[in-house]
């Protein structure tokens, strides 16, 4: 049973980690918490169902399932990337030099707006992801791991490695790091800070969309409210790992998933959500910089 819970927790944790990356990247550069990030994840999950519905109608899923799943990821990612870009333009860029609380309030406003927008356009009834992905898996010492779980773990790991390499090795990654250290200095040496910030939002949103698509496949049903809890949990994961710190967000996400999975099974399933927020409070009291963070989170 322990192995099974471990795998369940890790799967959940890798989804949290993907969303947490968006929080932490934006915080690293702008020192703001993008509270609308959870909604981008929710829109990603909805897009998965919509795109798959279109592909099924077009007959592609029957012919080539892996290709259609890939298309779902790509289209949903692009779509949410555009949402992220627009979000930054509309809600954050006009407030770039405003008081630090203004973008926070703007973020909460955007979150409420997006939630209600999806509720009004998609309805309040849960949307069901079509049952086209086989729920088969393999047995390892009494624990059954579905191929979907393996896929989620693998895809998250690949994405996180890719992000890490992107930030460490590429020119744009270097520009992002420079901007997060000192945006004024970065602009003086010729970095276009605005476009770096835009790219950060787009990458964060694509990661959130991927998490959304995977959750839609994993749970099988989606509603307009899922972004709220997932967003807060991913935020907790980012704080746990040290907000602004990218490996920290990955570690925080995985740990949070594990604590939730194991806590729900060994202590009480009623208190599943309590564990996440207990961690948030404990971290903020005893180690506000998080597990791997260097920066103190005083700017939140």
């Amino acid at each position, binding site marked *: *049973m322990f192995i*099974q*819970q471990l795998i*369940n927790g890790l799967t*959940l944790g890798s989804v949290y980690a993907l969303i947490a990356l968006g929080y932490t990247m934006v915080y690293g550069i702008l020192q703001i918490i993008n509270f609308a990030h959870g909604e981008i994840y929710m829109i990603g999950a909805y897009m998965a169902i919509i795109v798959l519905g279109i592909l099924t109608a077009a007959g592609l899923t029957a012919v080539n399932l892996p290709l259609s799943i890939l298309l779902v990821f790509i289209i949903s990612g692009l779509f949410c990337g555009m949402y992220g870009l627009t979000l930054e333009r509309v809600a954050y860029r006009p407030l770039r030099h405003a008081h630090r609380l203004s973008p926070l309030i703007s973020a909460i406003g955007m979150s409420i707006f997006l939630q209600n927008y999806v509720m009004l356009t998609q309805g*309040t*009834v*849960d949307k*069901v992801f079509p*049952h086209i992905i086989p*729920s088969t*898996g393999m*047995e390892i010492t009494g624990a*059954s791991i*579905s191929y*979907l779980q393996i896929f989620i773990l693998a895809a998250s790991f690949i994405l996180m490695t890719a992000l890490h390499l992107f930030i460490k090795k590429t020119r744009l990654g270097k520009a992002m790091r420079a901007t997060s250290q000192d945006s004024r200095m970065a602009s003086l040496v010729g970095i276009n800070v605005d476009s770096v910030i835009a790219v950060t939002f787009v990458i964060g949103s694509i990661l959130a969309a991927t998490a959304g698509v995977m*959750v839609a496949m994993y*749970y*099988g*049903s989606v*509603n307009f*409210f*899922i972004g709220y809890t997932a967003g807060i949990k991913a935020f907790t994961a980012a704080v746990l790992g040290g907000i602004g710190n990218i490996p920290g967000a990955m570690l925080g996400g995985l740990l949070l998933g594990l604590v*939730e*999975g194991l806590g*729900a*099974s060994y202590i*009480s*399933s*009623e208190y*599943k*959500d309590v564990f996440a927020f207990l961690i948030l409070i404990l971290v903020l009291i005893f180690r506000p910089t998080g597990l791997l963070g260097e920066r103190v989170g005083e700017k939140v």
Partner: protein
Amino acid sequence: MNKEEVSQKSKSILNAQDSRLKYIVCNLKSVFLLLLFTTYCLLSSAFTGCAKKEDTIKIGVAGPMTGDQAKMGTDLKNGVELAVSEWNEKGGALGKKIELLVEDDQHDPKFAVTVANKLSNSGAAGVIGHWNSSASIPASEVYKDRGYIPMITPASTNPQLTERGFENVFRVCGRDDQQGMIAAEFVVKNLKIKKVAIIHDKTTYGQGLANEFKKAMGNAAEIVYYGVVIQGDKDFRAVLTSIKDKRPELIYFGGIYPEAGLLVKQAKELGIKAPFMSGDGTIDKEFIKIAGKENTEGTYLTFSPDPSNIPTAKTFLDKYHAKYGEHGPYSIYAYDAANILLTGISKAGAVDGKKVSEALHNFAYEGALGAIRFDQKGDVLKAPYIVWITKDGEFKEYWKPAE
């Protein structure tokens, strides 16, 4: 402070004074407009509004009209709407047309109380609803305090609802103690199962049903797991993994279909082979849609017999299908509940909560479901629960307890 700043500051002070003036002027204007508006309203209501009020009998419908259980609310509303339109075609009740007030309680006890107050304020002569026991119980207290407004619920099965001795509370469905008993009898006598896991969703309905089932099982089988899932949650793997470890021969769930569907799906993904059983809260096509057709094969649930097999229900079903399409599990109950309420109002001869409630206790109604008569508590005298099975993506009658 340099010159520019000083001039800006004085400008802003001037501006502030200016805007204060404007504000006062605006206020005067709006006060005047408000006066005009209220006079207009008073006048118009005196001529039309009041007259209209006397003209109709208002019937409330309350249930989850939005949210994940919106399907049930819509079924409820459609059933009542059909009954009311039939009455109106015949000229209404007590010589007045019947008006429907539809309210959404979002299956939330807090909203249910708000909705109950709203319906009482707008002078509802009676209420059909609510759907969820957790909504019906707090709402019934409001209806009682606001002049014994009769409420007939088509679906709330928690025993507590009618056990408190309220004269104005009725239900046309059965009770969870009856339902739990039938489920336990089926599990023990028919399936001959010795180890059972029980889960519920912590709602009044789900927890109540799970406890009634547990009570009815007694010592006939071992309860190897008793746990909770949270309504609205989507990941139940932690609970299911713990259950898998205990190797039960059956999983019993007290709750509604959005969670039931996910439980069945995730249980199959974790390789749990024990059959799944639940109560009347899961009998809806959405359950099969969420869980996936192949995963629901052989799941059991308790519910009343299929209305398609009741001869008296045929006219209702034909009319309902023509107007709204496929009927929901509770459409027929809502229809009968509305008819009973309107008959009660006609028999009482007045729109008076106490009189109507009294009348409702004292007649047998021949409805689409057959004869319905309330006992002193407001429960139906006969509540036949049977066991259904899901086969090929359809709910089918499966087992009847011996008479």
